[in-house]
């Protein structure tokens, strides 16, 4: 059963302002725009702060950054990169491994805007979730891209990688890259809910692997206040990560520890009862129930959601 059907659209008093209900969305859009602007300031205004693309860049002629997935593809073909490439990857891997692997997906990647828009349309049209690949599919795709690179001796996946195609298109010239982006948009809207970022993208899979021990976490530390309105499930791009934290009982950690969580903060945005908040991975504190009456737990809803996993 889909969460969709469960969304009862219970009329609710919207006490919080629009800005508060979209604060992390606005912050993420600002972050994505700012990063894109840094890349575009050079070619558009002659302000050379960042050169290159998200694939590999040079900031202020001193800070090299290189995408680990790209360098991995290069290395499986048997080519050993230059030192700047290796240093760039070390910095990127270090940053994301410490702070939050999939921050890249929701705070940096330009494709996120496309798939978020697709999902928005998908919700507006009230469509069925469609094809839902199994949860390990992205790792299969990752392995496939690396195998093809090793077998063909070329970065074959980069001919179709919508993420790098889009970013390179924006910074260097689009060509027909918009077609690849449109395909992902249509795929996410009509074929598979959260299909690309949530199930298939091998680049996101690599950042997910960096996400296993990173510090930044969303915590359902106020889960006792949850009234099962399902708003968070409605918006979460990685829907399976919420349940263990939100539906946990007693000593179960309120932290969303699943490496698929992109730390987008959308659940924090939409929750009227402030169930979620950003914290670090060692903060397992629960907020004690206050004056707010905990909502009644509808056993039907809980069971239908897969309940306490």
């Amino acid at each position: 059963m889909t969460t969709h059907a469960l969304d009862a659209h219970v009329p609710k008093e919207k006490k919080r302002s629009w800005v508060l209900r979209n604060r992390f969305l606005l912050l993420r859009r600002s972050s994505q725009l700012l990063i894109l602007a840094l890349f575009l300031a050079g070619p558009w205004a002659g302000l050379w702060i960042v050169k290159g693309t998200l694939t590999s860049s040079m900031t202020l002629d001193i800070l090299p950054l290189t995408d680990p997935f790209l360098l991995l593809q290069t290395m499986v073909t048997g080519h050993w990169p230059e030192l700047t490439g290796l240093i760039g990857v070390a910095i990127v891997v270090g940053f994301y491994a410490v702070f939050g692997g999939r921050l890249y997906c929701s705070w940096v990647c330009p494709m996120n805007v496309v798939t978020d828009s697709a999902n928005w349309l998908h919700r507006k049209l009230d469509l069925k979730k469609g094809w839902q690949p199994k949860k390990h599919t992205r790792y299969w795709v990752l392995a496939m891209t690396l195998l093809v690179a090793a077998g063909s001796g070329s970065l074959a996946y980069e001919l179709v990688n919508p993420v790098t195609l889009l970013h390179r298109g924006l910074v260097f010239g689009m060509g027909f890259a918009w077609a690849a982006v449109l395909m992902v948009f249509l795929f996410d809207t009509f074929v598979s809910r959260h299909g690309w970022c949530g199930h298939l993208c091998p680049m996101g899979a690599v950042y997910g692997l960096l996400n296993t021990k990173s510090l930044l976490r969303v915590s359902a530390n106020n889960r006792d206040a949850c009234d099962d309105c399902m708003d968070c499930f409605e918006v979460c791009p990685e829907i399976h990560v919420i349940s263990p934290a939100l539906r946990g009982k007693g000593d179960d950690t309120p932290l969303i520890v699943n490496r698929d969580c992109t730390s987008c903060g959308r659940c924090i945005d939409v929750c009227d009862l402030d169930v979620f908040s950003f914290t670090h991975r060692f903060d397992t504190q629960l907020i004690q129930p206050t004056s707010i009456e905990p909502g009644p737990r509808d056993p039907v809803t809980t069971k239908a959601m897969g309940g306490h996993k």
Partner: protein
Amino acid sequence: MSDLKKTGLSSAKRRQFLGDAARTACGCAVAATFLTVYQAQAKAFPADAIRPPGALSEEEFLSACVRCGLCVRDCPYDTLKLAELGETGPATGTPYFTARDVPCEMCEDIPCVAACPTGALDHSLTDIDDADMGVAVLIDQENCLNFLGLRCEVCYRVCPLIDEAITLEMTPNTRTGSHAVFSPTVYADVCTGCGKCEQSCVLPEAAIKVLPRRIARAESAEHYRLGWEEKAKAGNALVPGVIDLPDRVPDAGGFEPVFQPGKGRP
């Protein structure tokens, strides 16, 4: 009973797991096949596209280049560009230039190579004169103004390695009978393929073009030895004594050679 139930359950689970895995693997195999075919086709490299200086061989280049565009950004003359998807150019996202539009200006510090984070542009290239982006070929002698006996010579004048990579060879003008033809002649060992000659050719379509070495050059057979070179190396003729093959003149039958010394050409 409960044991039976358990094993039944686990075997069903195992079957589902294997089914899922097989399905995903097949899906990936299909995608991999398409991707392999596509990348093979994308390797087609048009002859008028030239890789930046220091680029590894095309095969190695496609495994090393991450398509980041840093070389493009550090090119001070906006020579380099990245191939866009759908263009009939090199593999998507890889850097190249078109000599006829903007040639390589052969910067002494080679900033494009220095910018490359993966070594797809080989960092061991330190002297731009050693660059090997291609070879200029005077491809159409019938339209080249110099070959027609005029004194255009622009390609020769603009060459950064003038008199080394390109010279003017003087031969008699057989059309007028009293002038000279100064034919532009490229020395492939020295030519870097920068494309300045192709860009500056005054004809609507250039008579001299930079081509990839694989197209521009023949290869001498490995067992060929040039007698005069071997002689110079050894310091003397390899076979002692004068070699004079017997003149084979046909026997009787009224044979008269066309060329007769002393009489000039017929």
